[in-house]
């Protein structure tokens, strides 16, 4: 089928070459080439063809996912693909963006065995895991306990007589709940439990627990395991529950790289617990990248559809215009497009930083870790909240059709939205960042200098000496200059961190307990963290511009960067006004400039989403198809609906006909 005329026109009118921007997003032309090469392996492979998942039941979707995971294991081996990023490209092309029941086996289960076992344990378990002789998952969360790890109730009591641990789920609330792949797929689990030895509780430790019989896959005696039922999305995933009743495992099944229990029950303490930070930073940085990708996909669908859809009249007597020509539509979508780009650069930054310092971490230098840990916690929350709301906004911008599963956006949303909760609930994450910010503020107040992303707090003490400084700042903000806008965001973050820290101090002065004071300030603290993260995003986006060599691409990215920064101000004018960073007159200018930028970006909108370079398979959307042939394909799609399997639905014979006969 030919390309929709509207989309063809849009693409012809772009002022830059999308491929050059794709290279930037991928990290270079060579990586773009390799990515497409790997994607082609999947796209051209008939084994990976499948029915539209929207028409399958949960059990069927689970089965499809298992089939594809199994196939993938084989194909990856066949092609010799081992680089994590290349595996990621391969996976997302063959299983789309749905979760994978075997996902936790490849990530958390293997990674934990790699990092937390002794040499002997590694030798035993790693080949089994890598060769998929066993399938494992990672069981931490319990029915009654999530983010607060110390509250977990599962127990592992050491019995020196038999040199075994006895695992128990003592209460309903202690049942393991939610782990992916636990319900139906796994035959082993790494279980987090409170260790008891010699009558004392030694806190949480990890144990490898077999849960299903090899060969028959039946649950082992003492194990109750199953699927937790349907969720908001994640149909493929058998999130599971696990209840253990005096279940015994050998002593060697405790992961003993750090802490150990000796045969007689003596407990040997671990050296440092900061090391686990590393993994958390890594996983949260992946969520930042996922925020960017998920939002990019939603933007791609909404913007292409808005170029294809015509509605109402703008000028009397003329044909219905593309809905992308309405200012309100641009105002919904373009700031999100700018946000998607911003988050791409933030995700890349965190990943690079993590790789840069992970060498230091391995050598025991943990000095940079607290800041990176605090930063990623906040950015995980900031980006996932924003992307979550943005995906919904994109769906709403597609009107009624956005609500149909054929738009693909409902799927993006339900797959993405749990990231606001998993790997650290967002509010809790924001408060972790706040703790770091308040600590840094306290250091500055006591005369020390702080470094890194919080170094702007150093300026606060100077400002106090020169009270005119803040007022003088107002006129210096140039709303056309990204660098100047970074300063404005910096000032806002500084003021909100300071306000939160002062409010916290005031609560403490009321002789409240530390915890009470913290709780009573937590709304302020979250605001401060948000402002800090917002500043970091604007800063990283602005910094990226200078790295772009192609003038046309740099120009369009500069427009997006300005839009991101100015839109953020227009949505938070109160902060900038209250702190005296901007005047009301400047705010009016900011609002006006946002609208001007919408018109500037309009001709490049389709090219900007094309640059994300999602294949139609990645989008899974009829509305967002590259060729724009939306309506024909919606009809084709609907015909496959299960309700259309027969011309006359069985409920006619069962209910309607008998009723009408009786009347």
């Amino acid at each position: 089928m030919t390309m929709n005329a509207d989309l063809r026109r849009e693409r012809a009118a772009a002022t830059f070459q999308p491929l050059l921007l794709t290279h930037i997003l991928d990290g270079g032309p060579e990586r773009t080439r390799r990515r497409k090469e790997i994607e082609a392996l999947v796209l051209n492979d008939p084994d990976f063809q499948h029915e539209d998942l929207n028409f399958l039941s949960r059990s069927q979707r689970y089965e499809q996912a298992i089939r594809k995971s199994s196939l993938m294991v084989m194909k990856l081996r066949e092609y010799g693909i081992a680089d994590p990023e290349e595996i990621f490209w391969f996976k997302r092309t063959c299983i789309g963006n749905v979760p994978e029941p075997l996902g936790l086996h490849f990530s958390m289960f293997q990674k934990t065995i790699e990092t937390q076992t002794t040499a002997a344990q590694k030798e035993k378990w790693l080949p089994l895991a890598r060769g998929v002789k066993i399938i494992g998952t990672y069981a931490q969360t319990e029915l009654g306990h999530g983010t607060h790890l110390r509250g977990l109730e599962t127990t592992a009591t050491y019995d020196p007589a038999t040199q075994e641990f006895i695992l128990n789920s003592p209460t309903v609330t202690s049942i393991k709940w939610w782990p992916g792949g636990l319900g139906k797929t796994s035959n082993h689990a790494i279980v987090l439990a409170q260790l008891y030895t010699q009558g004392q509780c030694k806190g949480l430790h990890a144990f490898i627990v077999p849960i299903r019989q090899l060969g028959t896959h039946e649950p082992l005696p003492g194990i109750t395991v199953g699927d937790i039922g349907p969720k908001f999305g994640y149909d493929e995933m058998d999130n599971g529950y696990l209840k253990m009743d005096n279940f015994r495992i050998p002593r060697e099944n405790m992961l003993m790289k750090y802490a150990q229990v000796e045969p007689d029950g003596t407990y040997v303490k671990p050296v440092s617990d900061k090391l686990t930070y590393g993994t958390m930073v890594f996983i949260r940085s992946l969520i930042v990248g996922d925020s960017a990708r998920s939002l990019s996909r939603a933007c791609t669908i909404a913007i292409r559809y808005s170029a294809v859809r015509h509605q109402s009249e703008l000028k009397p007597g003329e044909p219905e215009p593309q809905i992308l020509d309405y200012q309100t539509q641009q105002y919904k979508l373009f700031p999100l497009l700018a946000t998607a780009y911003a988050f791409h650069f933030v995700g890349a930054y965190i990943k690079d930083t993590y790789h840069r310092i992970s060498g230091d971490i391995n050598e025991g230098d943990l000095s940079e870790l607290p800041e990176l840990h605090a930063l990623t916690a906040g950015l995980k929350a900031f980006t996932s909240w924003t992307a979550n709301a943005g995906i919904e906004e994109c769906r709403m911008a597609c009107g009624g059709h956005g609500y149909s599963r054929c738009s693909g956006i409902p799927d993006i949303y339900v797959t993405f939205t749990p990231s606001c909760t998993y790997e650290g609930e967002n509010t809790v994450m924001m408060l972790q960042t706040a703790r770091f910010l308040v600590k840094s503020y306290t250091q500055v107040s006591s005369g020390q200098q702080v470094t890194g992303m919080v170094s702007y707090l150093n300026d606060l003490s100077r400002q106090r000496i020169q009270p005119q400084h803040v007022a003088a700042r107002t006129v210096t903000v140039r709303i056309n200059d990204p660098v100047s806008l970074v300063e404005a965001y910096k000032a806002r973050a500084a003021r909100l961190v300071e306000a939160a820290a002062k409010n916290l101090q005031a609560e403490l002065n009321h002789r409240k307990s530390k915890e009470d004071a913290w709780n009573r300030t937590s709304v302020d603290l979250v605001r401060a963290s948000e402002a800090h993260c917002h500043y970091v995003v604007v800063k990283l986006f602005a910094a990226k511009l200078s790295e772009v060599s192609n003038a046309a691409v740099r120009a369009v990215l500069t427009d997006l960067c300005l839009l991101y920064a100015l839109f953020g101000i227009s949505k938070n004018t109160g902060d900038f006004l209250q702190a005296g960073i901007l005047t009301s007159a400047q705010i009016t200018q900011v609002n006006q400039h946002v609208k001007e930028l919408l018109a500037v970006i309009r001709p490049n909108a389709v090219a900007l989403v094309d640059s994300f370079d999602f294949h139609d398979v990645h989008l899974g959307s009829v509305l967002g198809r590259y060729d724009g042939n939306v309506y024909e394909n919606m009809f084709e799609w609907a015909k496959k609906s299960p309700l259309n399997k027969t011309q006359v639905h069985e409920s006619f014979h069962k209910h309607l006909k008998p009723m009408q006969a009786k009347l």
Partner: protein
Amino acid sequence: MALLETSKYSQGSVLGSVNPDLASERQTASFCVEKLTALLDGGAEQTRIRRAVVEAIQSDPVFSSENQYFQTQNERYEAAVRKAVHLQKKMHEMGWTENGPEYKYIYRALSGDVAFLLHRVFMRSISVLGSDKQIAKWIPLAAQLRLIGSYAQTELGHGTYLQGLETTAIFDIATQEFILNTPKISAMKWWPGDMGRSATHTVVFAQLYIHGKCYGIHPFIVQIRSLQDHSLCPGITAGDIGPKMNFEAIDNGYLMLKNVRIPRENMLSKFCEVRPDGTYVRQGSQKINYFTMTAVRISLISDEVLTPLMKACTIAIRYSVVRRQSKLKPGEQEAKILDYQTQQEKLLPQLAAAYAFHFINNYLQELFDRGYREIQRKNFDMLPELHALSSGFKAVITHHSTAAVEICLRACGGHGYSLLSGLPSLYTKILASCIYEGENTILLLQTARFLIKCFMAASAGQPVPPSVTYLAAVKPGKCPAKNKSDFLSPDIYTEAYQHVAVRLISSTAAKLQDLIQSGAKKYDAWNQCTVQLVQAAKAHCHYITVKNFAETVEKLETKAGIQRIMKHLCDLFALHGIFLNTGAFLHDGYISAAQMDMVTASYLDLLAVIRKDAVPLVDAFDFTDKSLNSALGSYDGQVYQRLYEWAQKSPTNKMNPAYERYLKPLLHNALSKL
């Protein structure tokens, strides 16, 4: 006492005793829950009737929604048809009629999970748009379900903008018939409920052509399926549009017409008629039709928006006193998550909004009843105002409530994502309300058009409708508050809201004028101001909501603690709105930076106050466990036990064919066999 009165509604639970963490919340209520329930219902008698209807429906196993979270689209659809058929019988048995006081509670008792909702719209459109003769012919058939109707307006390529519809109805004088056609794919009817599988008839909106001349959009009754065997009629292509985010029970459909002929009498002709010779005649005023559209927007607020919002608040708040997480004080047990300020900040403003919207809905209903009486007296003066209010409030309330339900969902941590929490389906259902019956942005622009017009009129000293008279009294000035307790004065914050609304409307009007004076075309100027116009319309609705809440509180009886707690909620609703939009209030210095800190302080203080009554405030909504259908929100608070028991019923726990087919070969390294 509240406990004893309501405990009988939790009988459906197998679990028995109330979780002590929830029980303790109910013992400290500062007001009488039963009295508040009666207030919400509009009197104790209404409460009694409602409970009787709910009891009659929910004790009938045919209406059970148990296990619906595990069902496929086909199963949900079949259940909805079964319920709709059974409902006819039930109504007869119970002596309920469509005009009786019980009727409006049936839908609530069924949680909307019933087929043939569009059948009602079909009937209403015939009653409103049909001639007396047409009404006499079709309504009895429809009332007895001898036929099943639908309402086909939206097309694949066309939604809110009716003039853009492409379906055609060409009058053929020779045979005295209309010939209906779907000329291209974007003209296919798309989305109408009950049309995919159930309907035998539908009202089709099409461009009327006589002698080659187009007369615009008109409604036609078209039979689409056989009354004998339900097969599609000749020339008809129809089916289900496929899975959506929710509404699994509804067969939203598509319809393609190819030279479908219907008799001349099938054009609904109360207002427009095509005579046998092809003469087109307009008669009477169509304004009543216009009124119907606005009435629908108001009528959906209660069942489709407030009910899910109140349910979501009930679930999230009850769960938040059962769930314990981390420690607030060292050495103590883990704290209830509702004791965290951040959790209160998420949930309590949504609770306040539920009450604010309940009261504004009452206000709108009264206004509409009055408008309807006027219209029956052929006085159409109130129409523009009613239209503007219905559009704006539909948009503001659906948007705000949708966001609120999502906040409730995410405030329940991981378990909120389980369908068994009930929250995902509340969310996916309520969010459709932002689109149907008028896309929200478009509706807000309609309100804005009215506001700009009124502002211009008021500035020129002309009279304006009552809800916008404040636009005439533009006064500059500053907020007089001196300390944080001043912000608990309704006069202070209502005035602030009014100020912002006036500022946004007047500055947008000025901007429009400027653009036009500097040579911009009217439509261009309008499009360039639409972002501001939307903000202005929202500010207007927000102001009216706050004002109405404050006035309602004023009139409440002071007994039984009701007025006091409602006053707290009103304050919270108002201050939260300022807290979220500080920029709008700071912009021209109406509220100063120092005053804004007072607003924040006052707002945060209120959270702790309302926290104590949070559970009684949701208990007052009086939802049964069956209505909530939530493992997290049940009256007894036995959250974990219920989640565990319900999960075991999942079909995924019945068998696992994937093991034999794929996992076993994988584990045995027999991958090549896959």
